[in-house]
């Protein structure tokens, strides 16, 4: 239904597509600082982002890179001892100036969040139905039966069988994948325009991961919703995001439309992230590539480039001066004095797609509104915004596994 539109826009870089109309979300020079006993911790520094309706932004980075703090900072879900500077405009409204009352109207209704661990994101002592209808009650003027009907429709749309029965169940009666579907249903309850998915699959079985990501994608297409997908796994965003921002030490170190990024990554950290994904085409017992060292101490950030201490290409200049985020003229931003230039063509993204375990054949959901019976859906054409630069061999791989 709305799948073609998604496929159509997939090859256009987000930035040039903007034109004059104001994007759904505009983040300018956002910094988030936590006050601590040892001094201020700058968890997010100087982040600038644009996001259009219906598009997906992937935020990638390892633990402690500030990716989760960034998404929570944009939403405003930071503790009182955190200070945010810069500007976050959502549909023209400045969120940093918004009071708690305005924010409560936006939360849930306009923007919502899918949390990482469905085991902890649901209240163990409340029935599923009550947890879904809670935000509907908060934001929409629905009668009790309307709320119940909406909840049933939501559960059905996220692929939960027997929704009427589920409403009366408690979270512990559901499996992990089902619970994450419930969490998504709760987030979607009031039809948000912007969905934050904070590592939505990290706590799930590999086989369920692809289903959940496909579900988010299908709902996104159906609702023309913008998604910010936060993950540590380049493989997850490779096929799902229109644009990718790589974070390191609280800063964006590289940002580009997905296919541009994979075609020519410029930052050594992105390269290292990609190398650290296990590959199927290497012989067994090959040592996994790891990025040696640890993320920088944000309490005492290093003087030069934050990645310099772990960077294989680091030069004296890297330890002395911090590079700016520069645009190479095509909308590809990176923060490096000596950018790498692996022109690895199509092989890079293919290996990510086939190796990252996210694409389980048979779990493919055709990106239309028939999600309820996703398990039974035959592996249809993958309409998922995969960059057209690369699809040939990836599809071939899938086709082979099918037969």
């Amino acid at each position, binding site marked *: 239904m709305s799948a073609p539109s998604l496929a159509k826009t997939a090859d256009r870089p987000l930035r040039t597509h903007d034109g004059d109309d104001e994007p759904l979300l505009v983040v300018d020079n956002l910094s988030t600082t936590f006050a601590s006993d040892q001094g201020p911790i700058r968890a997010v520094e100087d982040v600038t982002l644009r996001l259009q309706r219906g598009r997906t932004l992937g935020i990638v980075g390892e633990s402690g890179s500030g990716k989760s703090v960034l998404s929570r900072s944009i939403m405003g879900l930071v503790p009182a001892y955190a200070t945010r500077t810069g500007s976050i405009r959502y549909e023209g409204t400045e969120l940093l100036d918004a009071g708690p009352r305005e924010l409560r109207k936006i*939360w*849930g209704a306009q923007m*919502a969040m899918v949390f990482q661990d469905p085991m902890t994101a649901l209240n163990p002592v409340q029935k599923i139905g009550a947890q879904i209808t809670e935000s509907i009650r908060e934001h929409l003027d629905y009668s009790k039966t309307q709320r119940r009907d909406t909840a049933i429709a939501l559960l059905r749309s996220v692929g939960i069988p027997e929704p009427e029965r589920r409403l009366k169940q408690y979270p512990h009666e559901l499996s992990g994948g089902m619970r994450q579907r419930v969490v998504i249903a709760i*987030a979607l309850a009031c039809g948000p325009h912007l969905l934050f998915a904070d590592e939505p699959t990290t706590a799930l079985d590999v086989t369920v991961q692809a289903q959940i990501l496909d579900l988010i994608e299908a709902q996104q297409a159906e609702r023309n919703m913008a998604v910010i997908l936060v993950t540590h796994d380049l493989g997850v965003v490779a096929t799902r995001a229109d644009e990718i921002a790589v974070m390191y030490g609280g800063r964006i170190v590289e940002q580009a439309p997905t296919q541009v990024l994979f075609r020519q990554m410029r930052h050594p950290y992105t390269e290292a992230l990609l190398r650290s994904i296990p590959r199927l085409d290497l012989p067994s017992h090959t040592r996994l590539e790891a990025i040696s060292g640890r993320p920088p101490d944000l309490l005492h950030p290093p003087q030069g480039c934050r990645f310099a201490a772990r960077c294989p290409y680091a030069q004296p200049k890297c330890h002395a001066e911090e590079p700016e985020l520069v645009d190479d003229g095509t909308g590809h931003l990176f923060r490096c004095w000596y950018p790498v230039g692996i022109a690895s063509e199509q092989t890079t993204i293919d290996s990510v797609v086939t190796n990252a375990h996210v694409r389980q054949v048979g779990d493919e959901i055709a990106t239309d509104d028939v999600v309820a019976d996703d398990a039974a859906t035959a592996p249809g054409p993958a309409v998922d915004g995969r960059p057209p630069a690369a699809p040939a061999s990836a599809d071939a791989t899938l086709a082979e596994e099918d037969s």
Partner: protein
Amino acid sequence: MPVDAPPAAVEAQAAVGATGGPADPEGSSAKRGLGAVGWVAASWLIFVILVAFLAPVLESTEIIKDPVSADAEAGPGAPLFTEGHILGTDKSRRDVLSRLVWGARSSLIVGVGAVAVGMLVGGALGLISGFRRGRADTALSSLFDILLAFPQLVLALSLVAFLKPPPPEVATDGDVVEAAGGLTAIQILIIAIGIVAIPLLARITRATSLTWSQREFVLAGRAQGARGLRLMIREVLPNVLPAMFSVALLSIGIAIIAEGGLSVLGVGVEPPQASWGNMIAENRSVNRDPLNALFVPMVVVFFTVMALNYLGDAVRERFDVRESSL
């Protein structure tokens, strides 16, 4: 304390707790059911509550005697199984059984009432403190600490003295029982012991709600636009209630003993109205056989408090579910 839970109960609960992993058998049997001792404890408490509730009926149907009038025929301090006084009489020739039944009533009212006051105020303050954290928590926690710094019996004693209406001697008539508009002795005790219990109950509620408030589903609720009060009541409180209930059971036992302590100091339930505490207090100076007027209420208090403690523990273990199985 080795308790074998009925196998049927274990099986019935096995499906729910299946993810719990290998636990020690004693812990899991206590978790899945009440166990034999638990049932004895529960039955005893139900019996005590029933008897206390039915005290007026029992008296009007003459199953028990009048608790306050002395029986001239029976001597003071009649032994157990005296005819007409199955548990004997006390030093004022009053029937021990009847006083025990009526005493159960006042002791339970004081115990439950005081814990209800403490729970309502302390629980609410603890919940706010644990949920809001920050300045509210600092202020409330210091308040609890200050209250806890007072010796509890001394605090209760001064509260009773403070709340007590002016002594009845002020009135010229001899038969003044309570001052007009004043609180009855039992109400005073409930408030005094309740206030003493507030910081204890508040601290436990605070600790529990502190951990639950940091759970992700509370943040998720906030991200869906729920306001603080709603999160506190709908998301945090239901998770805190089992712990509060368990502590409440333990506290009722402590409150019953506290009333006894106050009786010994002469400010408990006012004689001639009976309470377990003042029965012990009144008869403690009896230093010749038989001692049944002293020991019978002691044994009853002992078993009741022990039953409350045991059930409180059982409730705690029953709800002490591992995070992973949620």
